[in-house]
């Protein structure tokens, strides 16, 4: 483990849930006692070795962890620069990193005696992961999903239903992830006594950003140890895509105090930052308050939230976890954005060079990796979080490539 130095980047948030000026607990009074209680229960669980033991056991035997660390030899050759390595979280049960967090939160829900689970979902990966753990623990599951996303991620909708979840299509707003989160919050205020809200990314009111990050940190903790074992060194650059930011923080956080390790977060540039149709909250947004936290948002000059746009439902969110807002301002992590078209190139590149069909979300990161690798030398290492597999996206990709299925 790293030492925690006085200048550590790993000691956030403070006890009020603030990451610098970001984060916090901006919720209606009805929810405030609940999230204070959630924080107490989470602290108790953190201090309980039995909780960690059950979490680790499920991750190993149910999720299939540790996920492999894979050297992408043919992709590296094709790019002709730095070595590209992948943390293979797309091999997890349910096909993405989302399950890591869901295991943690369902164990907490059970510990708190909650009997009903709700969640929001964009790509459907978090919805599927939540439906999965609910089936595993025998709890009823209601998933709020934007009506638009229900259409573009239909395989995941069917998966959730097979797993016994009720999928509620949300028609307010533009019918995407933001609107699904609004309706999940509305459900929660109306069902406070028995309901646990499993948030799918490192955002929302404190303690969610910290808690989700900690559950996802298994990614970076494993990768760091695997890298040291395989190469006897740390990577030069970490790369991950960012919707709300949970897979990126999961990879980055355990490395934050390794000063020689650079980090790159990849937002969705949609049709291009200059078009205004994107989801790059950090690169194209400004600080504000939404969904329980202060963070970077896509918004107009009156503080109304812009809808944003991305080909990838999992990145289609006009905000970002507050820790990323802080990491950006502190300069520790660099952020960039990749368009739909570039992500589609990344998608196809990985299919053909490595025989891996990635989700559209990490396809954004693949494109950024390709650009950076070419500018780096052969003895340098890039480690990317391959956080999801692409089965759910083949219909979207077929349509974009002009193929009828």
């Amino acid at each position, binding site marked *: 483990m790293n030492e925690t130095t006085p200048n550590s980047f790993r000691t956030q948030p403070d006890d009020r849930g603030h990451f610098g000026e970001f984060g916090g*607990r901006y*919720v209606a*009074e009805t929810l*405030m*006692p609940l999230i204070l209680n959630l924080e107490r229960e989470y602290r108790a669980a953190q201090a309980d070795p039995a909780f960690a033991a059950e979490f680790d056991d499920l991750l190993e035997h149910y999720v299939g962890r540790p996920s492999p660390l894979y050297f992408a030899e043919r992709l590296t050759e094709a790019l002709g620069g730095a070595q590209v390595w992948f943390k293979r979280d797309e091999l997890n049960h349910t096909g993405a990193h989302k399950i890591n967090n869901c295991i943690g939160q369902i164990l907490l829900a059970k510990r708190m005696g909650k009997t009903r689970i709700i969640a929001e979902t964009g790509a459907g990966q978090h919805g599927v992961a939540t439906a999965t753990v609910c089936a595993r623990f025998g709890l009823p599951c209601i998933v709020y999903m934007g009506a638009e996303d229900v259409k573009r991620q239909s395989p995941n909708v069917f998966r959730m239903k097979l797993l016994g979840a009720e999928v509620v299509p949300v028609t307010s707003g533009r019918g995407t992830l933001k609107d699904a989160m609004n309706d999940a919050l509305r459900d929660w205020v*109306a069902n406070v006594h028995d309901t646990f809200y499993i948030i799918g990314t490192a955002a929302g009111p404190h303690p969610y950003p910290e808690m989700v990050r900690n559950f996802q940190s298994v990614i970076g903790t494993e990768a760091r140890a695997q890298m040291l074992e395989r190469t006897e060194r740390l990577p030069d650059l970490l790369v991950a895509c960012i919707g709300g930011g949970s897979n990126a923080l999961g990879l980055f956080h355990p490395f934050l105090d390794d000063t020689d390790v650079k980090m790159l977060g990849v937002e969705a540039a949609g049709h291009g930052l200059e078009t205004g149709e994107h989801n790059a909250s950090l690169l194209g947004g400004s600080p504000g308050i939404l969904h329980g936290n*202060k963070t970077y948002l896509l918004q107009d000059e009156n503080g109304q939230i812009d809808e944003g746009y991305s080909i990838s439902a999992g990145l289609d969110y006009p905000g970002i976890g507050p820790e990323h807002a802080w990491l950006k301002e502190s300069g520790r992590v660099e952020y960039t954005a990749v368009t739909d078209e570039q992500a589609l190139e990344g998608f196809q590149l990985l299919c053909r060079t490595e025989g891996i069909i990635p989700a559209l979300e990490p396809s954004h990161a693949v494109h950024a990796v390709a650009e950076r690798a070419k500018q780096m030398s052969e003895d340098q290492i890039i480690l990317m979080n391959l956080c999801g597999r692409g089965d759910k996206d083949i219909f979207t990709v077929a349509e974009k490539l002009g193929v009828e299925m």
Partner: protein
Amino acid sequence: MTRLESAFSKPHAAFVAFITAGDGDTAANLDALVAGGANVIELGMPFTDPMADGPAIQSANLRSLAKGTTTQTVLMIANEFRARHPDVPLVLMGYANPMIRRGAQWFAEHAAGAGVDGVICVDIPPEEDDTLGPALRAAGIAPIRLSTPTTDAARLPTVIEGSEGFLYYVSVAGITGKQQAAIDSIEANVSRIKQSTDLPVAVGFGVRTPEQAAEIAKVADGVVVGSAFVDLVGEFGTDAPAKLQELTSAMASAIAKARS
């Protein structure tokens, strides 16, 4: 005495009426509420993501934004209301992001300049008071807080500390426009709150009829009605003022008679 203090010093409970700014002919709607007998106006600031609101007020927010309502529009509506009704207290209610967009101080000063007496910000709990509270107090605007069925005895002092104007007891754990709570639970909660504060306690969420308003007026210092008015604006558009005045009058007389 401030405008809010006099509204809560009448022999009957104060009648607090909510509509969304920029929805329908807002000036005419507000005049109808006052003519019908509302004692306090709550003017909703529209927001794209009204997380604590039910379908009625969500739709009102969207109708208003679709017409191009901005923060400046809301302030202008307030300012003109103040000119027409110098004595009727006016409270802005809404969400944090539009309120802090140009800075808390900008908002507080402009709201004060428009004659606003109080601000209810749904998603700034006492724990985040720094975000807006100090700027409001410095501008002479009352930060009005919400207390809910989940606000237990241990937490209540945190909510009361720093509250001004009145305390808004949200009678159901839920979103706006849904069912009303049972009257005995409302009565018990109001008397619990009144043991801890001298602030007047107004009760809202789910009040739709004169009968319900009268029940609450017996046990609380104020009755808040919102979705019922907002629904009328949605249904009748520019013909809404007459309907609003009719419902307001019926509620106002029920409230006036409630304690006798």
